[in-house]
């Protein structure tokens, strides 16, 4: 079932007579139970996009449907009730500094009208889930960034929402804490069947936990699909920029080609480079290589420099293609 259905969503800002289009004709659906990533460079419009999902931002054109209901048609009171089902966490945590951890987590329950004696029970249960039960009396200023985001997650989950929106939720955290928060989100997605929408500018976040991803570039939807598929075969320029190694390479000679090879778990066990030399007598220069887990499957990617003339290069590329590897030219960027 679709949780969110966006149809031709555009958002225009008027600023001193100048119009700025933050979103342009974005259409996508987010399915129940999935972890959906929205990735883009800063200023691409992804934060605006996620804010249309709970109508923190009104859309200028198009429609956003939540379980089939057009958000734009709802009254103020109705949108408040809907928002209780769409929890959100933020880059800057946004906890109440003057309230204890427990009081923070109890806040959405109070808004939802849960009776006082049940609020504490429920809030403590949430703190147990995020592993911070012992911090219930502490104040946010005493906690680390990772702990604060855990409290924010506990707060977000307290009123049993159907969706969790994460707006750059790990961008203020170091890599270790980022890993822990992502593991927690994945766990929550699995155990509570919670749909999660993750906004990020980091491909590593998407690779680690998202099932599907939308790539936003200058307010437009550049590409949307399975994370593993986009990693293997990015078709849009924006996707290539995110997937390919970030440090630019220059071929050592103008005629040489740079290609990116992607191999999944199975292909990774074959010694391709050695076989290349053995079978074709040609060599390549490895510029970068790494392996990572994308959507739970191990992937290796390698950027190699292919020397020689057109025909020789084609022989090498064909060799890799026949071996079942995904081959792309890096120069195309």
């Amino acid at each position: 079932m679709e949780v969110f259905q966006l149809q031709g969503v555009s958002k225009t800002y008027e600023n001193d007579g100048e119009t700025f289009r933050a979103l342009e004709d974005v259409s996508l659906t987010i399915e129940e139970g999935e972890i959906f990533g929205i990735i883009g460079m800063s200023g691409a419009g992804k934060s605006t996009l996620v804010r249309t999902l709970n109508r923190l931002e009104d859309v200028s054109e198009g429609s956003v449907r939540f379980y089939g209901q057009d958000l734009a048609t709802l009254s103020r009171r109705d949108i408040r009730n809907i928002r209780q089902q769409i929890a959100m966490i933020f880059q800057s945590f946004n906890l109440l500094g003057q309230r204890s951890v427990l009081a923070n987590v109890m806040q959405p329950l109070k808004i939802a009208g849960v009776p006082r004696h049940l609020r504490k029970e429920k809030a403590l249960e949430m703190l147990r889930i995020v592993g911070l039960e012992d911090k219930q009396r502490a104040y946010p200023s005493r906690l680390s960034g990772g702990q604060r985001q855990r409290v924010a997650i506990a707060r977000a989950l307290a009123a049993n929402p159907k969706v969790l929106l994460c707006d750059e939720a790990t961008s203020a955290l170091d890599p270790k804490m980022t890993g822990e928060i992502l593991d927690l989100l994945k766990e929550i997605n699995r155990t509570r069947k919670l749909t999660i929408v993750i906004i990020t500018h980091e491909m590593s976040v998407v690779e680690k936990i998202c099932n599907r991803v939308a790539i936003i570039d200058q307010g437009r939807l550049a590409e949307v699909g399975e994370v593993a598929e986009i990693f293997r075969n990015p078709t849009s320029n924006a996707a290539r920029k995110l997937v390919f190694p970030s440090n630019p390479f220059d071929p050592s000679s103008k005629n040489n080609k740079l290609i990116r090879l992607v191999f999944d778990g199975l292909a990774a066990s074959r010694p391709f480079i050695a076989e290349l030399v053995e079978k074709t007598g040609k060599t390549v220069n490895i510029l970068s290589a790494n392996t990572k887990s994308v959507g739970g499957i191990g992937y290796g990617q390698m950027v190699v420099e292919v020397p020689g003339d057109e025909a020789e290069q084609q022989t090498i590329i064909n060799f890799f293609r026949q071996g079942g590897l995904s081959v792309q030219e890096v120069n195309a960027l």
Partner: protein
Amino acid sequence: MSSYMIEAIGTGIIETLEMTFFSSIFAYLIGLPLGVLLYATAEGRILANRGIQVVLGVFINIGRSLPFLILLVLLIPLTRMLTGSSIGTVASIVPLTIGAVPIVARMVESSLSEVSEGIIEAATSMGASPWYIILHFLLPEAMPSLMLGAAINVATILGYSAMAGVIGGGGLGAIALQYGYYRYQKDVLWTTVTLLVLMVMLIQGSGNRLAKKIRR
């Protein structure tokens, strides 16, 4: 100093405290909601309303730009209507309150503006109504800053209460003026001034301590 003078100063202290206390309470009863409105009705805020914003802004700016001494005189008819008299401690509470309301409102507005937009966004995303956000997010979050503001405002009201002596209000200000200034009793002047300074220091000091204590 004569025992009569000492007794008069004792009464003056009590009258000053009375005027300051009641004027502060009334000024906050009116000024706090006005400050909240001033904050919340501004453009882009949770109760954005240009009409209310402009009207409130004009009244508060007029109130703040009038010299307090002029306000004292202007308000004599109103004071007489409300309290039946235009002189004395009770009567001076009226102009003190009215003079302090705009100052309180601006101070409250400024304290609320310090609360991060993120907190409001988080509250909105939880489905909280604007009034819920004000009561349960904005005011608690701004409390330490509101406390500091209150200390400054109460000290200002105390200073104003001394001015009320000019139009026949009671308190230390009246004593300083009548005995110290008009009758050249320098010892009375310096004693009352010292007492006023001490009271301001006490108010500011306890405000600071309180704000520090509640800030998490």
